[in-house]
């Protein structure tokens, strides 16, 4: 057998009901066809969790996946978690941190969690030693405490712990898994983990990852490093992201009315959170995930303000900083507090925020009153209400009980036209990206297989055409693609984004590292992948893997009953303008772009079902029979 380098070649299967642990080989065919991580997670899910499996039934599975580059600096610790979500679509998310590499060092590429446990348990992996251990006393503890207790109990100081908190235990919609302390990933996977009564997975490994061609690997990495270099970066945004991640966009977004202010009714907010303030007052130092090439993609912060007991932690993506505009939060301390609570309770910030923002709009428009909220004044800009509501959602108390099931479910309960304020796609909340300002975002959000997931198409704009190397063949028109509010050329651009990001998430690496010319130039990644594994993919074959992954995911949700009608964006974006920014609604433009996208993809324009010849071209013959009779 010709084994590819980079892999451990092992899948760990854990049956929580029978308390049985099995190790099996990772088929080489999968490594070649789907590479790893998100790609192989997809094929496992497709094969093993069919349409007859209910999301909350014991037959549902959670898959933790790594890829060939995991454990090398280029993998950046990305781990992909996948399961079938409550709305029957795919729940997939990736996270950084040291957990993924540690799993690889312990000797496993994938962990598949099967069945349900009666009592709370946690999984202990120490190289070959794998045990299901009792976690009854850990149930109810937050992720920080869980982390600490497991570290103390196992006596291994740097054991990496993926755990869930109160939110996921209470099956709050879109709950996440928290890796170690502050790395969150997998919207919705935490909920299923809570349902399976799996409190945590603790991993420790002493192995390494072997590289086939070290000289070439180092060369490819140095090439990437050159493009990320702060001094000579070809992208003027690199330094901003490198120090403040998404936070640095706050001012730009506010000035250009691109913030999702007040449940996305407006585009700017008074008293927005200034990034300089944050840096000056709260940041204490840099803190990043495993082998991040940027100096301060994440930062340690400490809040010592009177409203809250002193708390500290580290944050990176800044989702809440931009999201703070949604609920009108105007203080960094409140913003960081909600972030801190979300990590402790393993809640999804986006779900929490959008749901509270929806509640606030209902409150301000008189659909719900103080009686419904048990005295909380749920008004935009009320910092305390946001913090209090987050707590209540996690423990399903009072009005939190209604909000905990997500805004779509809450609108069904509340009624009275409140569904008009919903900002959800395929039953899941948006992610503070602004589709009305940039049409590529609108299209990408609409056609996403898992509901909104920005890592699948980030970044939604091509680089400045001047930055694109001349000899680089790209399958879309960079000038047309970069026009923010035009429908032209968006289909092929978004297809390319999806395909290329699917590969990046499968090798795996961090999609936020695609900056400057790397947004379109995949060659250094391909070189690194080939050097690491010893395969010799051409660029076409490499991108084809991505296309295969996207088509497989599409086939999965088609089999679950999703069709073209589900590929849409919220009513507000289609019908209402951004008032203060004079940005018009998207309207019919979305339909034009989706037609374009399906055509480029080789999917049926009326149903979004991939055509037979497309599936054959992608070696997905086994899917054809499953989709044959579906209309």
């Amino acid at each position, binding site marked *: 057998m010709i084994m590819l380098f980079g892999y451990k070649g092992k899948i760990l299967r854990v049956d929580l009901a029978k308390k049985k642990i099995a190790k099996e080989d990772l088929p080489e065919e999968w490594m070649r066809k789907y590479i790893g991580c998100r790609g192989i997670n997809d094929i496992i899910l497709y094969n093993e969790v069919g349409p007859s499996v209910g999301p909350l039934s014991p037959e549902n599975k959670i898959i933790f996946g790594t890829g060939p580059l995991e454990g*090398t*600096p280029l993998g950046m610790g990305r781990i992909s978690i996948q399961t079938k979500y409550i709305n029957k679509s795919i729940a997939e998310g990736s996270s950084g941190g040291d957990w993924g590499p540690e799993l690889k060092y312990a000797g496993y590429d994938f962990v598949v969690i099967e069945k349900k446990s009666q009592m709370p348990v946690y999984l202990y992996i120490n190289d070959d030693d794998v045990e299901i251990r009792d976690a009854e006393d850990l149930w109810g503890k937050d992720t920080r405490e869980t982390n600490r207790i497991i570290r103390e109990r196992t006596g291994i100081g740097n054991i990496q712990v993926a755990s869930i908190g109160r939110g996921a235990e209470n099956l709050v919609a879109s709950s996440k898994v928290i890796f170690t302390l502050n790395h969150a990933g997998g919207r919705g996977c935490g909920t299923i983990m809570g349902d399976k009564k799996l409190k945590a997975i603790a991993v420790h490994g002493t192995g*390494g990852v072997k590289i086939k061609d070290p000289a070439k690997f180092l060369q490819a990495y140095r090439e990437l490093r050159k493009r990320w270099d702060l001094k000579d970066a070809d992208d*003027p*945004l690199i330094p901003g992201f490198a120090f403040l991640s998404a936070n640095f966009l706050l001012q730009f977004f506010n000035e250009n009315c691109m913030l999702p202010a007040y449940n996305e009714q407006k585009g700017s907010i008074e008293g927005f959170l200034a*990034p*300089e303030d944050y840096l000056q007052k709260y940041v204490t130092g840099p*803190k990043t995930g495993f082998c*991040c090439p940027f100096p301060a993609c994440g930062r340690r912060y400490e809040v010592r303000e009177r409203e809250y007991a002193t708390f500290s932690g580290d944050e990176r993506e800044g989702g809440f900083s931009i999201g703070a505009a949604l609920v009108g939060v105007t203080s960094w301390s409140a913003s960081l507090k909600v972030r801190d609570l979300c990590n402790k309770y393993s809640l999804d910030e986006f779900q929490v925020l959008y749901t509270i923002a929806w509640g606030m709009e209902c409150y301000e428009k008189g659909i719900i009153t103080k009686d419904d909220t048990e005295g909380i004044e749920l008004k935009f800009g009320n910092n305390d209400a946001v913090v209090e509501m987050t707590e209540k959602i996690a423990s399903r108390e009072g009005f939190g009980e209604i909000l905990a099931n997500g805004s779509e479910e809450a609108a069904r309960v509340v009624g009275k036209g409140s569904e008009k304020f919903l900002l959800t796609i395929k039953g899941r909340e948006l992610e503070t990206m602004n589709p009305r300002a940039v049409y590529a975002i609108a299209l990408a959000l609409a056609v996403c297989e898992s509901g909104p997931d920005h890592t699948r198409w980030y970044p939604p704009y091509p680089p400045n055409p001047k930055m694109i190397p001349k000899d680089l063949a790209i399958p879309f028109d960079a000038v047309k693609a970069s026009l923010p509010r035009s429908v032209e050329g968006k289909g092929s651009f978004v297809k390319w984004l999806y395909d290329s990001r699917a590969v990046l998430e499968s090798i795996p690496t961090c999609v936020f590292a695609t900056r400057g010319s790397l947004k379109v130039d995949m060659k250094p990644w391909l070189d690194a992948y080939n050097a690491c594994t010893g395969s010799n993919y051409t660029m076409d074959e490499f991108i084809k893997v991505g296309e295969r992954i996207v088509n497989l995911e599409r086939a999965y949700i088609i089999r679950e009953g999703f069709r073209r009608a589900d590929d849409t964006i919220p009513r507000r974006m289609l019908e209402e303008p951004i008032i203060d920014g004079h940005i018009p609604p998207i309207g019919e433009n979305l339909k034009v772009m989706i037609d374009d996208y399906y055509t480029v993809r080789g999917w049926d324009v009326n149903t979004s079902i991939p055509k037979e010849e497309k599936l054959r071209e992608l070696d997905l013959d086994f899917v054809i029979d499953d989709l044959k009779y579906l209309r």
Partner: protein
Amino acid sequence: MGKRVFVFKELCNGCRNCEMWCSFSQRQQNEFNSSYSAIRIIRDIDETFDEPMVNCTGEGCPLNEEGEPICVEMCPTGALVFTNLEDACQKKIELAEKRRVQPMFKLIAPWKYPYPWTEWPKEGV
């Protein structure tokens, strides 16, 4: 005076690039494996700090074109410096001064990225 690796622990972001690349280059194992590494990033149980522990004299370590060992080359913040004692002392003082006037230097060393900001870049979003 001879050069060696100095650590500015307040700048360490805990990324472990140095640890992984050291293991990769040090022995001809073609492997990323921290047990071969001369550097470990240590953390407390609640991860309130990260700090590189270096067990290295620099002897026999291959240097790159700029005369740096790979751990220093791959450090994104400038927390590791390959220099002599005198220069290291000077850098330590420079860092302390700059941190006071420009909060950006809480995150990165001035020798790594010597431009203080006046304004964020605003084009090309």
